[in-house]
């Protein structure tokens, strides 16, 4: 990599991306000021698909609007100066020997990807995040590479304890520095980790065919930026290859396949300007109405792509009703439909989740919900005083709430399974769920009930019950239930997610409790 301004800028943004990625984590403060969501906030693909799908405006999208305007003026500079995935491709590309460009990806492929995504968004199916380059990178990092780093570092540290025991403490400051700044807090394993890693790897592996294969032939964000760049003011002169030279074709990472510089493909890296042996090339603002090349995509592809998007919008949205019961969304999400229209599937909420309660949906939420966050209480619960997922969500699909409001947001409602729950099933005390219920007035309460133990002897057992009005479905009860495998209490999704109020609820403690008959009469 030569040290051109574009390259230095790329490396700085990659470093920024990685630092922000590490910062997307609880670090002893309730607020996260700068998170990796910045890269989605400036992302025009997120902007367009959000606008088309949600058909509403959010001020969170303002940076992306500014980026759109900047692209209209300057061109597709995001890809050559900012995009962290593009930078990674540039870094590895020099080490990968090239075969010939892949024929199947040439031409209209990228439009066949972008057009259906945008059209489907218009018909309420917003899945463009699945192909967003930043999201692909972030998911690969969050679900596979970062946990991998954690696993390697931590298992090394743990085995050190096995070797030298408490003497390990002398090395603790060095390890703590790494642990506190770079490692994931706990070893969470994510579904779709393999797929996320494979997709990222596949994007990189495409470098085998030509430089920036992904960017030129597939990336929907790049294609969108390319469209905007068609009208940009910054122009290269000369527009084509010079008759006596042609070095540009070798230098250029993205264009000159057709013998001229296609503005849709130029990422403004300025390598041709630096590398020109004759010093003929310049990029200057120039207002011209002359069209640079034929307008693409052709009408056939445009209509076909839109039709494909429309067709996709129906089958992808099927979801079997029995899956809905466990469709627990992050706190503050009140409507499943609205959530799906706004969610970028970037994985940030899952990265930041304090208790690792959120996991990407594989099949649970239907095709439409692929990679959307699901709360799985048995693996982690929603921490009562934590608001991080809402803070890092780039589009507000998970709203950013003050802690007082977030505590009242309903994720679901807990239900006891009396066939499993110990006080009911085995007539013994437990009440771990009540102990952990974070609601100050306790959504899980217990009453002393005279009963007959399984040994036939009369005894008094504390039976738990749920005060549904004030249960916010955080899932800590299901999480801590001491039963192995299936919990005696489970959180189920509810349609009505009106925030709970803390009005004192009538306590049925003095109600007469019917005494069960002795199952073992003597």
């Amino acid at each position, binding site marked *: 990599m030569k040290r051109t301004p574009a390259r230095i800028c790329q490396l700085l943004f990659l470093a920024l991306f990685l630092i922000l990625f590490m910062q997307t984590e609880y670090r002893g403060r309730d607020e996260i000021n700068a998170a990796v969501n910045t890269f989605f906030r400036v992302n025009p693909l997120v902007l367009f698909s959000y606008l088309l799908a949600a058909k509403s405006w959010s001020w969170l999208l303002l940076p992306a609007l500014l980026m759109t305007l900047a692209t209209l003026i300057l061109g597709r500079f995001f890809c050559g100066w900012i995009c962290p995935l593009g930078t990674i491709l540039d870094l590895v590309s020099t080490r990968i020997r090239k075969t010939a460009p892949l024929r199947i990806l040439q031409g209209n492929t990228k439009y066949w990807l972008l057009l259906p995504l945008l059209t489907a968004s218009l018909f309420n199916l917003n899945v463009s995040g699945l192909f967003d380059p930043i999201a692909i990178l972030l998911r690969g990092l969050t679900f596979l590479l970062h946990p991998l780093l954690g696993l390697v570092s931590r298992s090394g540290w743990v085995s050190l304890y096995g070797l030298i025991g408490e003497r390990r403490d002398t090395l*603790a400051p060095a390890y703590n520095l790494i642990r506190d700044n770079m490692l994931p807090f706990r070893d969470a394993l994510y579904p779709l980790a393999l797929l996320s890693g494979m997709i990222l790897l596949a994007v990189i592996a495409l470098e085998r065919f030509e430089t920036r294969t992904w960017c030129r032939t597939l990336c929907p964000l790049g294609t969108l930026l390319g469209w905007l760049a068609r009208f940009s003011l910054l122009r290269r002169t000369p527009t084509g290859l010079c008759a006596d030279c042609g070095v540009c074709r070798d230098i250029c990472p993205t264009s000159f396949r057709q013998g001229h510089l296609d503005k849709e493909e130029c990422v403004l890296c300025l390598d041709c300007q630096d590398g020109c042996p004759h010093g003929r090339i310049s990029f200057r603002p120039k207002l011209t109405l002359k069209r640079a090349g034929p307008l693409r995509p052709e009408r056939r592809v445009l209509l076909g792509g839109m039709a494909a998007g429309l067709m996709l919008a129906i089958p992808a949205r099927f979801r079997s009703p029995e899956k809905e019961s466990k469709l627990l969304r992050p706190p503050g999400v009140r409507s499943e439909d609205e959530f799906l229209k706004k969610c970028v599937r970037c994985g940030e909420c899952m990265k930041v989740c304090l208790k690792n309660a959120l996991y990407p949906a594989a099949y649970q939420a239907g095709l439409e919900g692929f990679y959307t966050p699901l709360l799985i209480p048995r693996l982690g619960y929603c921490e009562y005083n934590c608001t991080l997922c809402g803070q890092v969500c780039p589009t507000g699909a998970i709203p950013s709430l003050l802690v007082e409001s977030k505590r009242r947001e309903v994720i679901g409602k807990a239900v006891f399974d009396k066939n499993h729950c110990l006080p009911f099933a085995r007539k013994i005390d437990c009440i771990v769920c009540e102990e*952990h219920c974070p609601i100050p007035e306790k959504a899980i309460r217990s009453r002393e009930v005279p009963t007959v133990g399984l040994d036939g002897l009369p005894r008094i057992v504390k039976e738990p019950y749920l005060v549904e009005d004030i249960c916010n479905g955080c899932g800590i009860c299901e999480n801590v239930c001491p039963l192995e495998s299936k919990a005696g209490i489970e959180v189920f999704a509810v349609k009505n997610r009106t925030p709970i109020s803390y009005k004192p609820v009538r306590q049925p403690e003095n109600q007469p409790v019917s005494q069960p008959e002795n199952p073992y009469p003597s």
Partner: protein
Amino acid sequence: MDRRTFLKASGAASLLAPILIRKALAAREQPLVVVAEGSDYAAITRKAINALGGIKKFVKPGNVVVVKPNMGWDRSVELAANTHPLVVRAVVEECLAAGAKKVKVFDNTCNDARRCYVNSGIENALKGLKNVDCKQIETERFSKVTLNGQFLKEWELYDEALTADVYINVPVAKHHGLSKLTLGLKNIMGIMGGKRGYIHRDLEVALADVNAHFKSHLTIIDATRILTNHGPQGGNIADVKVLNKVIASVDVVAADAFATTLFGLKPSDIAVTVAAHKRGLGEMDLSKIRVFRA
């Protein structure tokens, strides 16, 4: 004395002797419970320790000391779910002054460890103190310990507690949904690993099992403010009562028994205290406890 009366007498004596001896011993070393009161929490903590004979009685120079507060919940200081940071800091400073080589402060938290350490105020209160570790639990450091108790045959305990020279138990006095109150005896759960909810099915016996195996050298109960309802994590300031008291004793059962009275309850109301007393872990009869108000 004929053979028959001798046998009768010796039989009766052998039956009565242990009880008599225990009574005699109990009379001799009546457990002392110190209650210090005041609004300067660091000062009353020191006062309570000094009334027991000073920290030097427990901590020798070069000792590794574990100070085990209750900081299991993501609740702020005034909500009385965790030990008051000023009490913890005062105990830690006393240990350091006595020449402790290292003072370790930790708890196996119920909520997210990072949030508990921060929001209990304890991590921050100890910041800057030399030779003090306030580290989060590392699961690999739990080791299976044979307890041979009545309910727990074995359980995972934390190595830092097991290898410490001195273990100082610093619970906060609060309400608990199952055991009515949680005090010194229950605070031992903070050194237990595994799925701790399991022991709820026979809590008092399990706690007696662990406390019988692992003894606190000193128990200092934070009753500067107590949580009177919706414990053990509370969350409503209306459930908190400010008492400005710190209770200290070498006898954890005696300390618990006295602290029970702060809630208007009798020691015999608390099954955990009763089970521990029956196990011979300490005195719960208030008439046999010497209470000293410092």
